[in-house]
């Protein structure tokens, strides 16, 4: 492991100043992803600034009826919070579907959405990866693509040697729920405090796959805000994976559904394991709103969302299976929420 200096400043403002002043500095939260990357040589910082004990470890009620979750709240604590379990079950379920008990106790709400992809090529410093080493190409193209993207990728097959190629997926379960819930990210940066919609936090690879989010150097996530969303009381997270527990998603669906009789009054839908970002399924939502709450309509909405999906070939058979799998998972998840409404 490359040597690094370590600092634990006295305040978040000081932490932001310290990271801003050192181009090769990083923030340390729970460390479950960063410490592994230090060992693998994926992350090679000169300065590590520990913020785990600086940001808030409280979840407080907001004036408008939502919740403000401090960045240092652990994934376990948030999943166990009775307010989350009652009013935002999709979030509690997503948290509990991720990692295992020991990791959830270390992992923080501020750090979880900023974890890096589990693309095996990104994590292997001997292979080409534009995200880890900009301009080196993408070894995932035509490789093992079972865990890779089908949405938000170019219609043409990607070029393994191009500097902008990246077919990685975002690994967080929690982030999929936060995208569905229209969460708000509280950021303290070199220019002061600001908020941004969670759905705008992550970015597609574009011309720079090395950047996972829109955050700049020195920007620190201090809290995640959950706006009030009464329909989220009827919400759920469904994760499909290679093992029953402790595995990343092949596909996942976060959904909240508001049904009036046989009609969909409102819906929130986000997908995991299929794109460089937690994927908010806005096309499917448009198709569903005001339409019938039937399995046929749910399937049509899923198909509309996935019309632009691009399966990636691979030595493992590729990931084309994700498209029918996702269609079925979206349909079943919405159907289950409908059945919950009438029981």
């Amino acid at each position, binding site marked *: *492991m490359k*040597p*690094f*200096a*370590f600092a*634990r400043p006295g305040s978040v403002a000081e932490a932001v100043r310290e990271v801003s002043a050192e181009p090769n500095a990083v923030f*340390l939260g729970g*460390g*479950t992803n960063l*410490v*592994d990357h*230090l*060992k*693998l040589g994926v992350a090679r910082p000169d300065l*590590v600034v*520990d913020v*785990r004990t600086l940001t808030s470890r409280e979840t407080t009620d907001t004036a408008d009826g939502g919740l403000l979750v401090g960045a240092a709240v*652990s994934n*376990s604590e948030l*999943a*166990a919070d*009775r307010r989350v*379990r*009652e009013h935002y*079950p999709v979030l*509690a*379920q997503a948290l*509990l*579907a991720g*990692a*295992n*008990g*020991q*990791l959830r*106790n*270390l992992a923080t709400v501020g750090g979880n959405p900023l974890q890096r992809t589990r693309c095996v090529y990104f994590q292997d410093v001997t292979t080409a990866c534009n995200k880890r080493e900009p301009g080196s190409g993408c070894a995932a193209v035509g490789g093992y693509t079972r865990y890779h993207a089908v949405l938000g990728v170019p219609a043409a097959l990607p070029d393994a040697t191009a500097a902008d190629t990246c077919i990685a997926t975002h690994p967080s379960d929690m982030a999929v729920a936060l995208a569905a819930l229209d969460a708000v990210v509280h950021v303290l940066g070199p220019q002061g405090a600001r908020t941004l919609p969670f759905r705008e936090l992550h970015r597609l690879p574009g011309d720079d796959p090395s950047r996972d989010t829109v955050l700049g150097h020195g920007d620190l996530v201090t809290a995640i805000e959950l706006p009030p969303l009464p329909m989220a009381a009827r919400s759920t997270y469904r994760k499909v994976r290679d093992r*029953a*527990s*402790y595995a990343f998603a092949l596909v996942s669906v976060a959904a909240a559904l508001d049904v009036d009789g046989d009609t969909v009054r409102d819906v929130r839908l986000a997908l995991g394991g299929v794109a460089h970002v937690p994927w908010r399924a806005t096309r499917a939502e448009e198709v569903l709103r005001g339409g019938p709450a039937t399995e046929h309509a749910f399937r049509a909405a899923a198909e509309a969302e996935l019309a632009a999906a691009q399966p990636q070939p691979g030595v493992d058979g590729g990931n084309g299976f994700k498209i029918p799998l996702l269609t079925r998972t979206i349909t079943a998840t919405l159907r289950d929420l409908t059945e919950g409404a009438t029981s």
Partner: protein
Amino acid sequence: MDADIRLTVDGELHELTVDTRTTLLDLLRERLGNTSPKKGCDHGQCGACTVILDGERALLCLALAVAHDGAEITTANGLAPEGELHPVQQAFLDHDAFQCGYCTPGQVCSAVGLLSEVDRGWPSHATADLTSDPELSDAEVSERMSGNLCRCAAYATITPAVQQAGGAR
């Protein structure tokens, strides 16, 4: 680069100067001679290094020592007074819940942690009704122990051992 830290491990206070790159796992095993937490994968995947860190079960291999200045750690060695067994350890013996034993200190600490979590009403992926308090069903124990791998596959005896210890609380 070095840093000074204080750590309490199994009730004993240590004042140490550590390289900033040192994990708590390497510190305990290589510096303090406490080989109860095991180095299985060293990447947070196997659970062999599970301990109780500041009251909750956690992995030592992904914890930088310098980031846990002042921490209190209980390893499987320190769960019970010298010469005695913790109820979870006794339950593992009663149910023959191991073969080679390499993963056992991590399994035991994980079980101690999960019983505390269940006591506080924490749900899991296996909890059907999130608004209820969880019970120690087979599915709940399996799900909550999923972060502890056993290559001898003693899972079928680990689950009842955890349930026995849970019932004895």
